[in-house]
């Protein structure tokens, strides 16, 4: 039993890394545009199916899909951005409806193209078990987690150090002031949106190599990313990362101790508890008092 729990903790941590990438993308586009992209999970979905196509039809490692996924997701993301930008009236409500509609289109497009079957990598190298003391993981899971860590550090560096990263932070905190400082808010928003899409691309490929994907995944991922951001409270990258790990671990423990049917419910319950008890999130205590 103890080994099972340890294994669940470990697997949960590994998938949590990918959840963090998806959640950071959602938070980044929200920070820059004040708009929730309800099609964000579908961007991940597209990337995952790009990996499937490259592996199943191209016969090479799914990691080769990363450039393809980046290209497709960037194009879709840019089109989505331009559509959002066209909205003038009731921007908040209408952009929600718009991105929701785009999510429906993308999910059903994937469904039409690839049917509702569950897909995962067939590369033996990625499915090799790696044993670490009492627990084990597939090689693909380890690589995906490592990739997530590297990307999070890169994102942190980008936001902190690069000109565009600073511009994104400036636009998020005070749009009018940023504009006065000579920052083009539209271009900054687009950059933030594309970076969010890039995170989604990596997350999609990673998910395909470590887990199973199917058309309904996109919607579920958007919800998970949202739960993570609520858990994390006022956003910081480490906060989101910890919240994502918590969600991954909670899900994995639920599957091990109860039933896989309750996996989704575990995240929701966690989410409701935080919403009821800690409205500013697990890591937002300071913001709450202020």
């Amino acid at each position, binding site marked *: 039993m103890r080994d099972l729990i340890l294994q669940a903790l470990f697997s949960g941590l590994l998938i949590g890394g990918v959840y963090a990438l998806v959640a950071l993308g959602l938070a980044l586009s*929200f920070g820059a545009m*004040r*708009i*929730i992209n*309800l099609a964000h999970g579908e961007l991940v979905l597209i990337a995952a199916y790009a990996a499937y196509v490259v592996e199943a039809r191209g016969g090479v490692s799914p990691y080769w899909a990363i450039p393809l996924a980046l290209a497709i997701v960037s194009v879709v993301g840019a089109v989505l951005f331009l*559509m959002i930008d*066209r*909205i003038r*009236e*009731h921007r*908040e*409500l*209408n952009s*929600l*409806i*718009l991105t*929701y*509609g*785009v*999510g*429906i*289109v993308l999910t*059903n*497009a994937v*469904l*039409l193209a690839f*049917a*509702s079957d569950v897909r995962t990598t067939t590369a033996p190298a990625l499915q090799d078990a790696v044993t670490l003391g009492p627990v084990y993981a597939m090689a693909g899971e380890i690589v995906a987690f490592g990739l997530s860590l590297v990307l999070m550090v890169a994102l942190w560096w980008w936001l902190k150090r690069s000109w565009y990263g600073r511009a994104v932070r400036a636009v998020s905190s005070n749009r009018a002031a940023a504009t006065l400082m000579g920052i083009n808010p539209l271009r900054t928003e687009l950059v933030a949106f594309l970076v969010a899409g890039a995170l989604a691309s990596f997350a999609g490929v990673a998910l395909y190599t470590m887990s199973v994907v199917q058309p309904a995944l996109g*919607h579920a991922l*958007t*919800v998970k990313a*949202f*739960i993570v951001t*609520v858990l994390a409270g006022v956003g910081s990258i480490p906060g989101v990362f910890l919240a994502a790990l918590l969600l991954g671990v909670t899900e994995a423990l639920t599957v091990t101790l109860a039933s896989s*049917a*309750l996996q*989704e*419910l575990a*995240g*929701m*319950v966690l*989410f*409701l508890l935080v*919403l*009821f008890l800690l*409205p500013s999130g697990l890591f937002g205590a300071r913001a709450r008092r202020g």
Partner: protein
Amino acid sequence: MASPRAPLPGLALAAAFLVLAALPLLLGASNYLLGLLISALILAGVALAWALLGNLGGMVSFGHAAFFGVGGYASALLAGKLGLPVLLTVPLGGLLAALASLAMLPALRLSGPYFALAILAYAQIFRILATEASSLTGGAAGLQRYPGLPTVFGLDLASRPGAYALLVALVALGCLAYAAIRRSALGLALRAIAESEDATRVVGVNSVLLKAWMLALSAFITGLFGALNAHIIGFLEPDYAFAGSWSVLPIIASVFGGYRTVLGPVGGAVVIYLFDQVVAKGLIAVGHQILLGLLLVAMVLAAPNGLLGLLERKGGARAGA
């Protein structure tokens, strides 16, 4: 410019419902067509409830399937297991859906877009619960031994014409209630909250309470129609009663017809439902929702106020000139 607060479209409303009521007579009332129209009216009721929340509460809900499912299951169980009369269990289904909406109150503290996501997450909980609580709900296998609609004053509501008449009446009643709220000071305050919350609170409006009322009312109407639907079709399973399409279709219908108008969601529901069932499903068996998604995107971009919204705006501009 005149205020966009349109005059109560009483005449238009009456005309629309006369047409709706007479439709089956005009079209020869085939059972198939009546069945489609009955489903379309169920959807119209939910769309009306959705638009009421969106337009007056400023809240976009992606989770009305939760209220629909709760209403259906509650009424079916109360009638089937406790033997309560269906005429009582249907409104009780609505009340329980409203009660379920109370669990969402903490989410009202979240700002607009985050609320929308919260309700999305929330809707999933109910489907999972309905599947898992199998001793009560029959689980994934479903529920089918519960009574249908009764006969009232000689009108057999279980028959298709009877159910159709009942639904036309209820949807009309819903429209009237919606129009009345929209024109009241309550409706004005609600519209003000959506755009300028602090400015509205500072003159004494308890914005959270008002939003909570709208959420509960919207959930009640949705649950009511969910309950009616359960008794009309006589079969429930979690994947059907809590299906995502009960969240998606009302949105598309409302946006298509114009969610800031009273009649828009109703007209939109009839058009969208018939389009989905007759055209889209014929063209694409699996994934037919892609057409609805495209329609939704196109409407938000080209006519965010819906088709009726466009007409109303033109009329309003002329009246204001």
